[in-house]
């Protein structure tokens, strides 16, 4: 019982702090808008004096409260039985603590607001309107009592639900049943045939490809732009995937190669600083080759360094490129902080190729080419050498792999992909400038690779969709996107270091899947 109380207190404090933090960054209000979009009840009539946004916020807070309760009612470590009473008490304690903390916050901000203290001068998101919404339009005391009751109730309910539903006996039975059915389904000869047949895969890929190619025709300008961005991030992600995922070299200055591709395209085709105005099709390969060469040049001295030093050196290199491109010293050469405007788009047989949908097809083609190349590389001798090197450099050298050459190759190929992405990016935007090449771009690409699944093509595509596509869909979350990136990186490392879609080899190496290590044991028993 004492243990459960401690668990409940712990959960209450954690969730209390999280809820307070969410309020302070203005997320409680945003959650109201977000749910209003979801339920499309933004313009509904007020209900007992509560606007729809307030009701939505209450729903969101109640969900947080439920989670707190269920977290507080969890079993303590090594506990085998799961009686009702401690679970309920844990949930109730968590809810109570949660409610007291949030209630105190409501009391505090409400009182400060009544006395006209300009809180939002220091805490940017705590606007008077946000406070009013948080207190549901009432006085500070009313608001505090409301939050206390809300979180206590939902905490208790969370404990009840999680003991009764999530850990109840019928749930355990249902799970076993479902698993049986699924196994039975998989054993059916027809299903086995479809699954084992390589033709199935081609059919699925073909259908997907056709669907993907139809999308730009239906999508509007904005969506085509977004799809283009996602695909460019797929390009970048696949390039970095070779460096980080396959060869195991963490590159935090990947944006430098992206910038070199973009600036090459810009300076060769734009009229402004260089008066060259070459064709897109000449500038594109030059950009790719230049990026690859820079990769080689940077890689040659740097690749002797061990993992985290390499990360910092590449970060420094990326920052140097950005600082140079913003400085006055380079203004006459590359436009300086103002960037390079009116970059040419591609033409085919004299016909300009610049509308949104057309360009998306071009980027699609590039992405498919890169996916093909990566796939072939990964399963080649080179790819296997990279993976061996990532796992153990000394052993791979003993197996006859020239590690320095292989590392350079990985670096150069990764850089070439980034150069291609950068050239396409600059040409599509018809503008490029130093703001396009901040450290955050490198981090975004690293996040795409890691969240998706290191060393894995579908993983990278999924990562780009999740990290670059989802925020566009959820526009309200724009402000929180980068912060969530950071949190996601940490959470992925803690819970799933292999990514959303782990590559099969990687899965065995990281060993997140317990079944993999246990398989041989079962075999030996039989």
């Amino acid at each position, binding site marked *: 019982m004492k243990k459960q109380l401690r668990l409940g207190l712990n959960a209450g404090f954690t969730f209390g702090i999280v809820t307070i933090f969410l309020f302070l*960054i203005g997320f409680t209000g945003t959650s109201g808008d977000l749910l209003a979009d979801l339920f499309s009840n933004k313009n509904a009539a007020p209900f007992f004096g509560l606007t729809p946004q307030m009701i939505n916020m209450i729903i969101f807070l109640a969900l947080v409260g439920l989670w707190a309760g269920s977290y507080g009612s969890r079993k303590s470590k090594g506990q085998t039985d799961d009686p009702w009473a401690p679970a309920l008490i844990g949930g109730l304690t968590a809810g109570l603590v949660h409610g007291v903390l949030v209630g105190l916050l409501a009391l505090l901000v409400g009182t400060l607001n009544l006395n006209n203290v300009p809180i939002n001068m220091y805490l940017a998101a705590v606007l008077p309107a946000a406070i009013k919404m948080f207190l549901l339009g009432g006085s500070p005391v009313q608001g505090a009592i409301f939050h206390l009751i809300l979180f206590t109730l939902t905490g208790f309910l969370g404990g009840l639900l999680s003991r009764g539903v999530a850990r109840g006996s019928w749930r355990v039975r249902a799970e076993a049943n479902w698993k049986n059915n699924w196994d039975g389904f998989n054993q059916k000869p027809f299903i086995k045939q479809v699954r084992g047949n390589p033709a199935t895969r081609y059919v699925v890929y073909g259908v997907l490809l056709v669907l993907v190619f139809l999308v730009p025709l239906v999508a509007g300008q904005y969506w085509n732009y977004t799809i283009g961005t996602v695909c460019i991030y797929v390009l970048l992600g696949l390039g970095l995937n070779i460096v980080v995922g396959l060869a195991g070299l963490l590159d935090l200055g990947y944006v430098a190669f992206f910038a070199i591709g973009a600036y090459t395209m810009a300076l060769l085709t734009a009229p402004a600083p260089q008066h060259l105005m070459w064709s897109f099709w000449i500038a594109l390969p030059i950009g790719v080759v230049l990026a690859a060469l820079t990769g080689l040049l940077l890689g040659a001295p740097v690749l002797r*360094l061990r993992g985290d030093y390499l990360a910092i*050196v590449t970060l420094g290199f990326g920052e140097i490129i950005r600082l140079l491109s913003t400085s006055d010293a380079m203004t006459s050469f590359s436009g300086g902080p103002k960037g390079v405007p009116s970059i040419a788009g591609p033409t085919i047989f004299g016909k300009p190729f610049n509308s949104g949908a057309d360009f998306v097809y071009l980027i699609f083609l590039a992405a498919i080419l890169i996916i093909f190349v990566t796939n072939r590389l990964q399963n080649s001798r080179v790819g296997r050498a990279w993976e061996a090197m990532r796992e153990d450099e000394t052993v791979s050298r003993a197996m006859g792999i020239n590690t320095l050459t292989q590392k350079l190759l990985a670096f150069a190929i990764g850089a070439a992909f980034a150069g291609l992405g950068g050239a396409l990016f600059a040409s599509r935007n018809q503008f490029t400038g130093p703001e396009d090449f901040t450290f955050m771009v490198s981090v975004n690409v690293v996040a795409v690779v890691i969240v998706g699944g290191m060393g894995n093509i579908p993983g990278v595509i999924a990562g780009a969709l999740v990290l670059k596509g989802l925020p566009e869909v959820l526009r309200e979350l724009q402000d929180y996107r980068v912060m969530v990136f950071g949190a996601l990186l940490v959470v992925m*490392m803690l819970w799933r270091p292999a990514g959303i879609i782990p590559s099969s080899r990687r899965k065995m190496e990281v060993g997140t899947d317990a079944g993999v290590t246990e398989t041989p044991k079962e075999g030996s028993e039989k």
Partner: protein
Amino acid sequence: MPSAKSPARRVSTYKIVQAILGILFAGYLLWRLYVVLIGNPEYGPDTWARFIISGIVLGSVYALIAIGYTLVYGILRMINFAHGDIMMLGAFGGYFVFEAFKAIPVPTLADPKMTFLDANPILSVVAAFIVGASVAALGGYFLEKIAYRPLRGAPRLVPLISAIGASIFLENAAQLLFGTQRRDYSNPAILTRGNGWNLAIGGTTVILPYTGVLTVAVSVLLMLGLYLLVMRTRLGRSMRAVAENKQVAALMGIDVDGVISRTFIISGALAGAGGVMWGIHLGIVYYYVGFLPGIKAFTAAVLGGIGSVPGAMLGGLFLGLVESLGPGILGMSYQLADVIAFGILVLVLIFRPTGIIGEVLTEEKV
């Protein structure tokens, strides 16, 4: 990089190229020094004095932050990428103390608009340092507990990525909490930025700012304190033991996790004090304020040989001086001061990852 050393000492082409490049660079530097100081002097001695003063002040802040990197690296062999952001938390802590004290009116006969901040400058500064350091120490403690401790024993890249994630999270959480605008640090009236002792150098007066003197004095005090802590106390001894070998330290009855926690608290507190100094001396605080000093302090730690505390102090001072003197000596514009700092980082890591000043570490450590 574990590599077997060849028994006979052969001179590789890499070493030769390195030596030639080094000689060329040293020659260029000497030539520039000659041009700038004797041949065609662009600045008078007063300007150089100003550069040196600002370099020493910056350097002492870098040194404090660099110690945090070095302590953590020495024990966990990982780069605490979020260390700069811990410094940012400390800077905000001090900022809020000053703002709160400024809001308390203490009217006197002479000056009815007197605030608590101006009336008690010493108390305010001490409170700012204590609060800033405690906030940052708490930040460091929770950072380690949440983002690093569960990853102990994971492959090297995993905690580094987690650290990068934590850094991004902290920066953007601060942006959402405190807004994007740059805030002015409101110092007590005595410590107004730009005030100081006047020194007569080369016919003109050079101001030795009070804030700068305060910064250097506090950082020297803190470094002395740290030195005593590491060398003379039981905790310092266990820290050194854990840095040497975790398993053996645990066998000797040392609570390894506790020592690591405390290391993060100490390095966080130092970074927080550095953040408050940064605010008092340079006067601006915002969510991204920790990024560049963080990277530069890491450079300083590497310069001094990462893992060595005196090395980090010297490296910080050296980097501060290079940053303020470098553009003048090399004849570059001041926009490129950061390029010089990053350039040094890249060059040192490529050519001498064991650091210029510090001892040569074993292969295992580097």
